[in-house]
């Protein structure tokens, strides 16, 4: 073969391999898919930063020694913040993308905060009638687009460079179902995966995949199994469920792991929904190509407490040759799985105070000694409906091997009440009772941030808070843990000892997700600040002063002075 011909064949075959592997020059493609598989240390290109949902940034320019010199680089205010600034920003190639209330989306220069573009979704007025509104928790990027779900039931794509609308697909009949999208989507190969709200609604909640290129629906997974043994009578028609937060993905196994929400009604007066109520309050392993269920584990069979499993991260990590998945639901228990087949490896409690079960079998996941609220007198339950933890995420640092995670030690008094599901003219809330927050027996309610082994639950350090924290956690390669509290103080801790190394008062409490990224060799830490959310509505029963805590919302970005 002549050298010229060999060069030509080499070039063609290289191009073909590049096309197959999707490693085309990244800047030409925006967030190329390889950028989602092999994340640049400078970037934070998806809700949990990486498919393994570690929320860990390897950047170490800001570290234990110099974090005391952290100062504000810039601040951005999204405006119109209602119910808190709940989102986690995304950063690709120095551009920061984030969302505020009412699906207001921004693209900012990550170094200066200068606005590149903004897009304010034109929302149907039905949004004002919904329970789950007007917050949004995040975006996804890929295929040169920015993706998000809307409060009025659409999934949208914007051009990453211009913010112009690329496509918009109406997925939900929000006027009828009162359901919508509040969580961030997940880009997996050529698809966009997103789940809907529905846990407190008399509807059937689903997880959807759309074609990322044009918004056409590819598949849907109904979290309400069509099985009369699992849903007695017609209860499945009103079964709730859904998967409102963002899952994780294992490219090697080609499995997406997605937590599902609680059944409706939240409380059972005795015969509200006979059966185990699959696939609510479960973890699903789905084939992202077709939505086929590969395995599942129902963490809370026949959930009597609204211990929703649809929240937070689903940690993908390997240890001692085992492929593990670590997942938590609102009960405060952490489930460790073999992620190849869903077999339980361990179950451990993140919370110190609980009475909803006596224990959970660490080998099988079986709930032992259930304590469900029932019709009649008020029932004292720990933890409360907001959960041992809410939907905010912890962070796993592979260097320390520790998971930095929050917990709420709060109880409640539940009064169960029979309720008829309302579906006309629109779905009405379907709780089947109500509850009021209570202090735990013999002490005050409180919260804590722990450093734990995610597999065994062994605790290395812990920091307590008067008001249970509801913000997500960031850990970094600089040995830092960053976390904001309800009172509006963001702190950096020593990842090894829990010692507080730095703090800054942002003026409003924290409900979103802090991130770290770098632009032109300089590391930044971005912290959404803005108190609000449905869960916060439960606090004043125990702490009346929280009703007057300032709301508002701003994105604070810090760098070394």
């Amino acid at each position, binding site marked *: 073969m002549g050298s010229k011909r060999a060069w030509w064949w080499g070039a063609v075959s290289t191009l073909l391999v590049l096309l197959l592997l999707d490693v085309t020059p990244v800047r030409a493609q925006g967030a190329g898919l390889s950028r989602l598989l092999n994340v640049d240390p400078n970037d934070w290109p998806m809700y949990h930063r990486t498919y393994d949902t570690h929320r860990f940034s390897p950047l170490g320019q800001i570290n234990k020694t110099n974090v005391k010199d952290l100062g504000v680089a810039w601040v951005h205010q999204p405006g119109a913040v*209602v*119910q808190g600034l709940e989102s986690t920003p995304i950063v690709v190639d120095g551009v920061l993308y984030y969302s505020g209330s009412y699906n207001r989306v921004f693209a900012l220069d990550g170094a200066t905060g200068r606005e590149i573009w903004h897009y304010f979704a034109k929302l149907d*007025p*039905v949004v*004002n*009638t*919904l*329970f789950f*509104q*007007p917050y949004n928790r995040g975006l996804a990027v890929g295929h040169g687009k920015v993706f998000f779900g809307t409060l009025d039931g659409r999934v949208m794509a914007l051009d990453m460079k211009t913010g112009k609308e690329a496509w918009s697909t109406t997925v939900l009949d929000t*006027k009828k179902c*009162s359901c919508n999208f509040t969580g961030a989507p997940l880009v997996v190969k050529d698809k966009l995966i997103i789940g809907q709200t529905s846990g407190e609604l008399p509807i059937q909640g689903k997880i959807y995949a759309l074609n990322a290129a044009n918004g056409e629906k590819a598949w849907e997974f109904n979290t309400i199994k069509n099985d009369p043994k699992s849903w007695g009578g017609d209860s499945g028609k009103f079964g709730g469920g859904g998967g409102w937060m963002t899952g994780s993905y294992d490219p090697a196994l080609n499995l997406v792991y997605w937590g599902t929400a609680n059944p409706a009604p939240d409380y059972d007066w005795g015969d509200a929904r006979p059966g185990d109520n699959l696939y609510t309050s479960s973890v699903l392993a789905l084939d992202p190509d077709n939505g086929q269920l590969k395995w599942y584990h129902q963490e809370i069979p026949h959930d009597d407490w609204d211990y929703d499993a649809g929240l937070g991260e689903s940690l993908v990590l390997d240890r001692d040759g085992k492929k593990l998945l670590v997942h938590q639901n609102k009960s405060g228990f952490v489930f460790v799985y073999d992620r190849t087949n869903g077999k339980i490896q361990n179950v451990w409690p993140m919370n110190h105070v609980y009475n909803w079960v006596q224990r959970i079998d660490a080998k099988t996941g079986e709930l032992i000694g259930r304590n469900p609220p029932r019709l009649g007198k008020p029932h004292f339950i720990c933890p409360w*409906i907001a959960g041992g933890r809410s939907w905010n995420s912890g962070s796993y640092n592979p260097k320390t091997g520790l998971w930095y995670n929050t917990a709420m030690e709060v109880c409640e008094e539940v*009064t169960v*009440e029979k*309720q008829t599901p*309302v579906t006309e*003219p*629109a779905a*009405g*809330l379907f*709780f089947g*009772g*109500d*509850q*009021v927050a209570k202090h735990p027996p013999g002490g005050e309610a409180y919260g804590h941030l722990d450093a734990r082994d995610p597999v065994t639950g062994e605790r290395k350090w812990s920091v307590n808070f008067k008001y249970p924290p509801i913000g997500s956690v960031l850990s970094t390669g600089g040995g830092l843990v960053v976390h904001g509290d309800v009172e509006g103080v963001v702190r950096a801790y020593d990842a090894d000892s829990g010692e507080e190394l730095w703090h800054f008062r942002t003026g409003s409490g924290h409900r979103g997700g802090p991130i770290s990224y770098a632009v032109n060799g300089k590391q930044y830490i971005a912290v959404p600040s803005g108190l*609000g959310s*449905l*869960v*916060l*509505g*439960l*606090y*004043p*029963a125990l702490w*009346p002063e*929280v*009703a007057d805590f300032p709301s508002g919302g701003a994105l604070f970005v810090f760098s070394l002075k």
Partner: protein
Amino acid sequence: MGNRSVRVAALALLLATIAMTPRAVGQAMRQPPPLPTTPPFDLSDPSIVDAGSHLFRQTCTGYCHGAEGRLSRAPALRGREFDTRFLFQRIAYGAPPMPAFQTLLNPEDIWKLVAYIKSLQSVKE
């Protein structure tokens, strides 16, 4: 005013009308329906108040209002005097972050909620 001026003025009016139409339509879509001026039943009727308390537990408490109208993220409703029409209007149309209930509850049910909240007026905490 000459013919040309009239034509220019008419054209300007037409353009202004066209420019304003989408917004006007948008605003019209958001116009609330007329308020019922009087409740269809006696708001102090114990059976109405009781029905309102059931609805309140099912729809209003938990994440928003406190149990039996106690303080929560939403304001306390116990021991407070509210104008009857204000209560109906606030429940029907909401005020962010409180949702509007006009499409979820029929006017009778909203009046039952009004009756229950009015019944809390004399409660001392």
